[in-house]
């Protein structure tokens, strides 16, 4: 029954007169890596916001792990997001006055209780144990993004949603971050990754192309 981890059924998301997503159907199996591509303004971030339970669709159903969350209120969405979803942003978005370690602890604090050893272990995984006490402003872009990935992983979510995670990185850091996503994919995490870079797109199991809020092309590898 739970063959699909994510299932969007004729989702529509309007902002006033703008229809950012239009009659959108989209299914993801557990452990799949789906790349989302498309021109600017095609609705990629809007889609991710709905998948992340940050936003609610104007109409349509969204089954997350078999639960219809389309009609959830803000608090219910917060709870389910904490449990199931890790977010990686293009602009990293770390809290500027908290250290690398504290930024990770914060996600843990909102989720349950803080455990410094566990948080340190994730930092080790992204190779930043020596920068634990540094503030985001003291880290390079690549390092900040690795902290962001570590933060997304701390509560062991089944799904990682990333919006152009390498968009602001040089090639070297892009490779490092991409390596994490490959590892996570290998460990069976479900990954949905928005990108403008076709090479990164091809790392997924498939790519869907968006245009004006609709899927215009699907490529399977």
């Amino acid at each position: 029954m739970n063959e699909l981890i994510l299932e969007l059924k004729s989702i529509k998301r309007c902002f006033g007169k703008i229809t950012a997503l239009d009659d959108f159907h989209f299914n993801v199996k557990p452990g799949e890596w789906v790349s989302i591509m498309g021109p600017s303004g095609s609705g990629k971030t809007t889609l991710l916001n709905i998948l992340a339970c940050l936003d609610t669709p104007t109409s349509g159903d969204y089954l997350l792990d078999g639960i219809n969350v389309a009609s959830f209120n803000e608090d219910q969405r917060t709870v389910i997001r904490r449990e199931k979803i890790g977010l990686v942003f293009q602009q990293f978005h770390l809290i500027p006055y908290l250290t690398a370690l504290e930024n990770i602890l914060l996600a843990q604090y909102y989720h349950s209780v803080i455990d410094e050893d566990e948080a340190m272990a994730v930092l080790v995984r992204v190779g930043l144990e020596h920068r634990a006490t540094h503030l985001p402003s003291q880290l390079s872009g690549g390092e900040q993004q690795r902290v962001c990935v570590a933060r997304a992983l701390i509560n062991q979510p089944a799904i990682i949603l990333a919006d152009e995670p390498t968009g602001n990185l040089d090639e070297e850091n892009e490779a490092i971050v991409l390596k994490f996503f490959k590892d996570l994919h290998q460990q069976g995490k479900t990954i949905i990754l928005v990108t403008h870079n076709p090479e990164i797109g091809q790392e997924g199991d498939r790519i869907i192309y968006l245009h004006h809020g609709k899927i215009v092309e699907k490529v399977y590898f």
Partner: protein
Amino acid sequence: MFFRLLEDSVLRNRRRKVLAVVTIAIAATLMSVLAHISIDIGNKMAKELNSYETNIRILPKSEGVSLFLGGVDYNPLKGRFFLNEKDLPRIKGIFWGNNIAGFSPFLTVPVKITGYDAIPVPLVGTFFQRQIGDVDGSQSFETGIRFIKPYWTIQGAWPDDLQQNNALVGKALADALNLGVGQSLQVTPDKGAPVVLQITGILSGDDTYDHAVMVPIETVQNLAGLPDGVESIDVSAMSVPESALSRKARTHPDSLDVQEYDLWYCTSYVSSIAHQLEEAIPNALVKPVWHVAETQGAVINKIQLLMFVMTLVIFIAAGLGVATIIQTSILERSGEIALMKAIGAANHHVALLFVAEAILLGVIGGVCGYLLGMGFSQIIGFDLFTSTIAPSPIVGPVVGTYAVAISLTGTVFGLTRIRRISPTAALHGRI
């Protein structure tokens, strides 16, 4: 983690925090002043009003039925009993003599003013301001109506007690007869020769004497042929508020046991002072003037109501101030709040941060306000009552609670904004 966030939250944007603390502190200061004074005012006001108002009246013993109408005593003076002016020094000789702020004797005859023969006018003889020796003549004491009616306003000058023709005319009478300072006035008693008086001043501020002419007591004594005659004495005494014991003494004087009697006698209750005056002055009937005490109660109630209203108004004003400050600060941090929500913060997580901060700011503001308020109350207390105001232990917690309540109320109104911040901003990079 929470305290780590709080620490940063508090230290950030210090200017706005200071503003919030100052807002709360101002409110707390006012509250602290009001509370200090309000609590202190009962005793202080009683004292103050007692020393203003005559609160004991001494009458001759048989003066049971007197016919006072509009300040005019229509009883003929003949055949009545009088107090003796020579007994006046005994008033200061009682156990609580030092609590006697002042006294003044009275003797009144109805007179007719030449030119306005229709209406009799009371000619009131009294002491304005004069030295009186005490019983054994070793010490002198200055007294007179000036000391028991400090709220009187005189246009012109007070009469000189040594000038028997000096007169003070009530404002209403002066207006009715078009009399002014410096003019003279001829008055005639029922039986006797007319006397010419010189108006030195016009009196306002006391309804009782609004239609009267006041002169040194000797003038009336001569007109009435009653040397040393006094028909009443008003005494102003400093007394402590009534207690169960003093009420018992008043209603059932015989029911007091020896200890209770001693305690009552040695406490400056109006009733014990009155009792001692009765003992000291021959043929005297001493009556505490209770309605003065009741007036004091009513005044105090009104002042306390006023203070309550002010407290409420300040609360609302300061609460609105804090709400605005908090809203601005939430607005400014909306990016950060959106991110917190995106990574799993519920509204209550964010709200708690602001609430904790509000409590902290409230406590700081409250402590500052309490201390400032204590300082100001001392100044005000000194100004109004020429005495310090005792710091009351209850005021601290009251002001503290008040300050935190302002801060919390303000914050709670500001908090509605948190709900409106959408976490979608995080992914869009709009933070």
